[in-house]
């Protein structure tokens, strides 16, 4: 099967700030390659500062990459002009970590969810509203939420709205950047289940960025462990959990020691 996205030797270097460019830059993402098949999830796991969020922003085309290619729908996104990118963006959507600031507080839920449609195409207001109500229902919110504002919602409801907004453009790939980490434990499970269900229904591919190996194991088919900008270990989720080779993976397993599966996995070794 053709992968939805194929990343080859991607490098993101942040230029040093400061006058005269004296400050040295640093390499956030260092020659990373992977691909994701339709309907599957790749979890990108790493500690904070490992470069996983930089990578997510690069894939969402919100940051320009320094080198390498991102193959998506037969085109290299890294080489596209901003104008050409606009046509591709709907197929590849990003959901942010904290829905408290990823939703415009001045707008109603209806407007927030329908906004991508407004941006992309000229669609009548009535149809936009209908589509917004439809997609809200898909994420488990009734149409009565259309008129609410983000600050009237709970964290879990807000993240549902953020997911609905990403879905309305009918993407092929969702980049989920720490989408569970701002939520309470009980809500995390609900949203995780919602994501699994949506993946089954729409055949979406996910790039699930997280620092939580337990959550990654629960959601992902494949796990890539990142450290200092590089992928240090990559493979099927099961395999990574049971036979972690790298120190980084082991320390992440240690951090997730509350998870029963993870503990079992460590004991078995």
């Amino acid at each position, binding site marked *: 099967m053709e992968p939805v996205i194929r990343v080859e030797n991607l490098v993101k270097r942040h230029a040093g700030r400061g006058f005269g460019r004296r400050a040295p830059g640093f390499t956030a993402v260092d020659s990373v390659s992977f691909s994701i098949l339709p309907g599957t999830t790749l979890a990108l796991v790493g500690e904070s500062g490992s470069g996983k969020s930089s990578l997510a922003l690069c894939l969402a085309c*919100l940051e320009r990459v320094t080198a390498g290619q991102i193959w998506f729908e037969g085109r290299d996104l890294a080489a596209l002009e901003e104008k050409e*990118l*606009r046509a591709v*963006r709907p197929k590849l959507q*990003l959901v942010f970590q904290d829905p408290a*600031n990823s939703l*415009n507080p001045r707008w109603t839920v209806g407007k927030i969810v329908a906004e991508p449609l407004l941006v992309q195409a000229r669609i009548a207001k009535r149809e936009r509203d209908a589509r917004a109500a439809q997609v809200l229902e898909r994420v488990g919110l009734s149409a009565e939420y259309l008129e609410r504002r983000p600050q009237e919602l709970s964290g879990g409801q807000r993240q549902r709205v953020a997911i609905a907004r990403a879905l309305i*453009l009918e993407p092929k790939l969702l980049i989920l950047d720490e989408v569970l980490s701002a939520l309470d434990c009980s809500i995390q499970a609900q949203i995780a289940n919602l994501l699994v269900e949506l993946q089954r229904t729409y055949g979406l591919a996910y790039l699930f960025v997280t620092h939580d190996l337990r959550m990654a194991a629960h959601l992902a088919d494949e796990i890539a462990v990142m450290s200092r900008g590089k992928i240090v270990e990559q493979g099927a989720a099961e395999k990574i959990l049971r036979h972690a080779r790298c120190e980084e993976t082991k320390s992440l397993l240690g951090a997730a020691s509350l998870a029963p599966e993870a503990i079992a996995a460590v004991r078995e070794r």
Partner: protein
Amino acid sequence: MTRFLVRRLAHAAFLLLGVSLLAFLFSTLAPGNYFDEMRLNPQISAERLSALRAEYQVDRPMVVRYARWASALLHGDLGFSFAYNTPVAPLLWTRARNTLLLTGTATVLVWILALPLGVWSAERLGRPADVALSWATAVLLIIPDLTLALGLLVLAVRSGWLPTGGMVSVGFDGFSAAHKIRDVALHMVLPVTVLVAAALPVLLRHVRAAVAEALEVPFLRAAEGHGISRRRLLYRYALAAAAHPLIALFGFSLGTLLSGSLLVEVVMSWPGLGPFLLEAILARDLYVVIGGVLLSTLFLVAGNFVADLLLYWADPRIRSEAAGR
């Protein structure tokens, strides 16, 4: 909404009352008054002087004078000018009009320049173009307004391209309408330039900072991810998200319409409130000074009030907050 309005208006009224009281207190407590200098004039007899003092009620206690002045103010009467021997209000109004012509033009120009330049700069934050602009505004910020005004005056005198003071040329009354407009416009160039140069760096930096900050907010990055056009992102979304500090600044620029140009007017001999109030202060023309202070305060209060209304209109969060209380 009504509650919000009423609270704001009550606030404003209270502030005006306080300022009027303080202005009155300080200008009365300061030693000397308009008639003191007349004592040195041998042509005015002591009897005539005390008659004058009685006529203008300078000899009455301060509380009585304030009460009389305040009650007159409620009827729209700002009192009497000692020097001009006419009511204060029309005097102030003529000068205020000239000042507003100057500051109004400058304010409009500053905003027209600052918004696109600030957005342009924020878009390329840290890149050479932005750094260059930052240095330019820093230099402009360092030069004192007075130096700038004097420098421009020297240039104008040397080159002879522009009139160097006043508001109209000799023989203005005989000009045709178009010629009149042209004449005033030419006289406005120098003072408006100084005012714009003084206000632009500050405003530009605020716009730049506010927009740059807004561009980093995740919901704007999300909109970028939906494929929004650059223009729409910058001018519709980012400016709206950055509206809070900008609206407050806008209220401030409205508020300083009467008081922001006083120095420049004096230097450029623009017949506005600046020279007029300076003269009144030096002559201790009490009610003119207090009237001027009060009028400036009124503008400041009104500017803030407009800003509050705009914020209320622009941000549903404030609306729900005000309704909730």
